[in-house]
């Protein structure tokens, strides 16, 4: 195999099925864990600054898909990935290194994972590691990120207290603030409200709406209603296959596939 030169790589940008407004283009993506096929030959694209809801019953490959997008699957040696994912036209597996991808495509996990340090240090964690040393700049980043995650007013008087003392909903918004602080382009959420009460959930959703102005967001959720509330478009995964992807109102009112209809009306899953 010939390794592409830098020029080839440059030339490749912008060609292929990348159309204006496509942030991420997924082509023939398959993911295997040994003999278990978690994702089967999935192709679609994610538009710039949309919220893409991803729904589907358990074990349909949603998490595996998200973790492929920011290459967290690399950590699991049993994972085999085929196909390609392009971010801004650049192949995330072959033309970017994992850290570069993860800085641009960050992730909020199902359970909030505050790091065992203060609220301020949690948000400043990413920027510090990426080389921001100036204290005033850090303060600015932290404030901006906490505001964007709708948490600032609740914590501004106790930034130096432990993040572990926050409530679950606050912790999840802290995690969102932490990802915002590294100035990403895409934010992935893996069932971010599964452990939260309705009020906290509403706050997280509100934050997502506000973030639309700047970020592309992909929300995996086990809550069909949440996908309908928040998603611009919604993708339905079933047993590793992408069954359907469409505008949220279309998918929920007039699904093209019978299986989608069954799932959203609660007949299985």
């Amino acid at each position, binding site marked *: 195999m010939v390794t592409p030169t830098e020029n080839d790589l440059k030339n490749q940008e912008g060609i292929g099925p990348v159309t204006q407004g496509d942030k991420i283009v997924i082509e023939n993506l398959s993911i295997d864990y040994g003999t278990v096929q978690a994702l089967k030959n999935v192709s679609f694209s994610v538009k710039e600054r949309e919220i893409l809801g991803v729904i589907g019953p358990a074990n349909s490959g949603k998490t595996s898909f998200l973790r492929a997008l920011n290459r967290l699957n690399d950590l699991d040696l049993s994972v085999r990935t085929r196909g390609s994912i392009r971010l801004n036209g650049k192949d995330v597996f072959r033309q970017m290194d994992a850290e570069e991808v993860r800085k641009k495509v960050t992730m909020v996990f199902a359970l909030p994972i505050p790091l*065992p340090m203060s609220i301020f240090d949690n948000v400043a964690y990413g920027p510090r590691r990426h080389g921001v040393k100036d204290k005033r700049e850090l303060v600015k980043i932290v404030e901006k990120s906490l505001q964007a995650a709708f948490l600032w007013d609740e914590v501004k008087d106790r930034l130096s207290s432990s993040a572990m003392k926050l409530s679950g909903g606050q912790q999840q918004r802290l995690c969102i603030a*932490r990802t915002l602080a590294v100035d990403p382009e895409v934010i992935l959420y893996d069932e971010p409200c599964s452990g939260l009460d309705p009020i906290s959930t509403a706050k997280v959703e509100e934050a997502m709406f506000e973030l639309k102005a700047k970020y592309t967001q992909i929300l995996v959720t086990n809550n069909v209603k949440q996908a309908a509330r928040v998603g611009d478009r919604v993708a339905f995964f079933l047993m590793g296959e992408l069954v359907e992807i469409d505008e949220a109102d279309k998918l929920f009112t007039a699904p093209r596939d019978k299986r989608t209809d069954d799932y959203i009306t609660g007949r299985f899953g």
Partner: protein
Amino acid sequence: MKISSQTKQKIAFTLLGAAAVLVIVPVIVIFAILIEKGLPAINWQFLTAMPRMGMRAGGIFPAIMGTMYLVLGTIVVALPLGVLAAIYLVEYARQNWLTRMIEVAIVNLAGVPSVVYGLFGMGLFVIFLRFGASILAGSLTLAIMILPVIITASKEALSSVPRSFREASLALGVSKWQTIRCVVLPNALPGILTGTILGISRAAGETAPILFTVAAFYLPRLPKSVFDQCMALPYHLYVLSTQVPNVNPKIQYGTALVLVGLVFLLNLVAIITRSYIRSKKQW
């Protein structure tokens, strides 16, 4: 006569309780004897003066300082080496024959008698590498002896840091090494320190490894460099008890009490460190 299961249970509990109590009896007896016979010997002069009259009088200052130097030298060598090895094994090594060999080696090293370490240290550091009998050779020997303890404790401490913390950090585009440095290590520190201090307290009390590598029989002055020999408490105690005739038993017991006290103190520090950091730990 039939014994009811209730009674049987009572008998079993009593036996088990007795076994548990038996464990602390020797500890109490040893401490009681040491304190009774050694405490009268201990005063400021005993702790800070050079030995005199062929060690039959004066203090044990050079032995205390020698043990301190050896402990320090052992930490300096064993802590970084042990922690780095543990990081490699836990975070980087893949499961293959090499890592399995390393793990087996660690387990076996932990079971090697200390006198073998002494002979090994003499062969390698004193003779082959020409360090001579010196603090350097002694510290290196002790360090190798306690490496398994430090590696095992560090490995355990590193693996107990939740995987989710690592992922949270990596998901921000932070590199693996930075993740280890800034998230994993700080959270593993209490476990690592506890293991290290326990290892060190063992090193402080051993005679055999320092016998041929550093310990001086009688050297009433402090060492000037790492290439000097020094006295050390465990060896000094051995010498006082078996090699020098007509030593006042007060001095023997006093020396033993200082040694045991030192080791006890180190263990206490380990326990306090651990419980302090545990109480602050939030996950």
